[in-house]
């Protein structure tokens, strides 16, 4: 087969590929056939371009001299003189130059100020959540939790009944075997947000009573107030104070004692 025939075959293949794409598009759009058609079309054109480059275009070598830089010493000297002259002429009124600097700086500052509109002041937002004394613990669908609702060693994502779906308030409720020290009838609740980078601490190792963050593998001790056992988290998982009400409903006795989620400059 001659070289031109090879190129012709590649070009015909490209036409075929485009046709496959158009037909695939027109008959409902199976992305597999569409993509295969387009890829074949591009590959055929690519092969043809290579054929042109290596077989049809005469091989040629050219030499360019580098003479564009640096400029000749004479040009550089003249440029320096002109610049020096201009700088002297422009900067003669010294006082105005200082004032110009100050006014440009204030203009830039004025232009920067509207960026303040992008968001509210942090204030104390990160220091508290929506949990209040007496808030019932509720599931994602809003149903309130009673003392018998959870099996031992299972976990559940909970919210304050008045703030379902509030990310900052989300907590993990865990039921430990009855009689576990420091629990409310076996229940403990920890902030759902990892103290490292804010991912949900969603994995529970029931056998070891550990909470594990799937993002960077920080491990927290459920039996020791959420202390960090391993991983990059730098402080314990905040624990939500809870109690079992006389009606059997699980309730918070207050907000988390410290800010939840990742740490920040003002946290102290």
């Amino acid at each position, binding site marked *: 087969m001659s070289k031109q025939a090879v190129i012709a075959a590649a070009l015909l293949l490209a036409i075929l590929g485009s046709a496959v794409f158009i037909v695939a598009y027109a008959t409902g759009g199976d992305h597999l056939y569409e993509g295969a058609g387009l890829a074949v079309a591009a590959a055929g054109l690519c092969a043809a371009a290579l054929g042109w480059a290596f077989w049809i275009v005469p091989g040629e070598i050219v030499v360019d001299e580098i003479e564009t830089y640096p400029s000749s010493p004479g040009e550089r000297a003249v440029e320096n003189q002109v610049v020096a002259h201009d700088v002297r002429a422009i900067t003669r009124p010294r006082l105005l130059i200082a004032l110009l600097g100050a006014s440009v700086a204030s203009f830039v500052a004025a232009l920067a100020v509207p960026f303040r509109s992008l968001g509210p002041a942090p204030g104390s937002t990160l220091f508290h959540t929506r949990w209040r004394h007496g808030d019932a613990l509720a599931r994602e669908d809003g149903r309130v939790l009673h003392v018998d609702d959870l099996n031992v060693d299972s976990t559940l994502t909970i919210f304050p009944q008045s703030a379902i779906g509030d990310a900052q308030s989300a907590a993990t409720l865990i039921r430990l075997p009855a009689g576990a020290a420091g629990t409310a009838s076996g229940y403990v609740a920890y902030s759902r947000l990892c103290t490292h980078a804010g991912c949900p601490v969603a994995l529970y190792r029931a056998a070891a009573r550990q909470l594990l963050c799937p993002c960077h*593998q920080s491990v927290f001790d459920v039996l020791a107030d959420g202390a960090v056992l391993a991983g990059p988290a730098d402080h314990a998982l905040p624990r939500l104070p809870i109690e079992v009400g006389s009606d059997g409903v699980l309730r918070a006795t207050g907000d988390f004692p410290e800010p939840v989620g990742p*740490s920040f400059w003002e946290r*102290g």
Partner: protein
Amino acid sequence: MTLVERGLLWIDDRLGTAHFVRHALRKAFPDHWSFMLGEINLYAFIVLLGTGTFLAFFFDPNLSKIAYHGPYRLLDGAMLSQAFASTMRLSFEVNAGLLVRQIHHWTALLFVAGICVHMGRVFFTGAFRKPREINWVIGVLLLGVALFEGFCGYSLPDDLLSGTGLRIAISVLLSVPVAGTWLSFLLAGGAYPAAQLIERLFVVHVYLAPAAIASLIALHLAIVWRQKHAQFPGAGRTEHNVIGSPFVPNYAAKSIARFLAVIAVVTALGALAQINPVWLWGPYDPWIATSPAQPDWYLGWVEGALRMGPSFALHLWGHTVPSPFWPAVLLPCVVFAVLLVWPWIDAALRKDRRSHQLLDNPRDVPWRTALGVAIFVFALGLTLAGSDDVQARYLHLPVTAITQFYRFFCIVAPLVGFAIAYAVAAELRARGGVTPAPRVRLRRNAGGGFDEESLP
């Protein structure tokens, strides 16, 4: 007179371009394969602009929720953000939408990979030396913007993986001393998760960052054009010339072929290889997590650094510098600062203030080559550590043991890599390159044995 000739004359009548065009057509481009890597990125960027424009017609960055009804039955009736739902629609209901979306994602991965490989070529051959420091700096900026742009795009669909990635990014921003809290509130429009965040990332992703990348690429190419391409030493090649194929037609034909090759590869990938199936991850809720979870490959090094990072917060006068600051802010800042000033560090170490048109063979500067290898091995260790949970699953080892291994690896392996690369490069330099084995032919003789005949 052909149409092309008449067209050129028409333009010359108005702009006087004959002199420029004559020289431009015959501009010399050296043909070494490693000089083509940058072109792959240019063409990948063009593919990204094309596919991205198509996607932008269908994507809606709104975070308000609607009930989804569509061909993907498993999510029928689910309350999804408009961002997620429009991603579902353009994947399942827009003809060619899924193809274009997958091509876009694959091309983005290729774009960043191409930048890294191109940068490696420039580093190992000393192409960043005077007079090309400006283009090195522009290249480093391009890498930074490309990483940022990629992450913004990855975050748009509001799926479980990307939402988790954004959560981490905002936490990293929070960890910046003094200004972090304010920065994160201004960027996101409030405490995370904030309703405006995806809309803002959308503006950055489709407008600001592409404009920055396009401008930097234009500047990058204009400087290459002005300075002319560097070349490896060889017959006739000096510090004051460049020898290669003429731009038109030889080089242009090959370059067009490379453009088409990039299109063919990413289209085949987009058709055949599924990428980021957001319907499998599901919509994002801040209290739901998925495991294992990895970012796109180019942020694996930051992810790995976060996983291996010290469990250490600095407490200063009633203020906190949290633990993510060290691996995810300080480390990348140091990396990019060193990259930006690298041409001047290199020049100072070599006490070299001359201009260079001839490139280094990597073996001729063993310490630089060894340093490049060490940095590569370090980045590799960080990236591998970013998937320690996956490795734990397959190796049946505790994930903490694997993290510990990579901490060790990231300290020791770069040193070992440095030593080996230095020894190999120094040996090759001493030998003046690899001598090809003598060519011989074996001929059977009458006695049944073999005689060796040497060939020219």
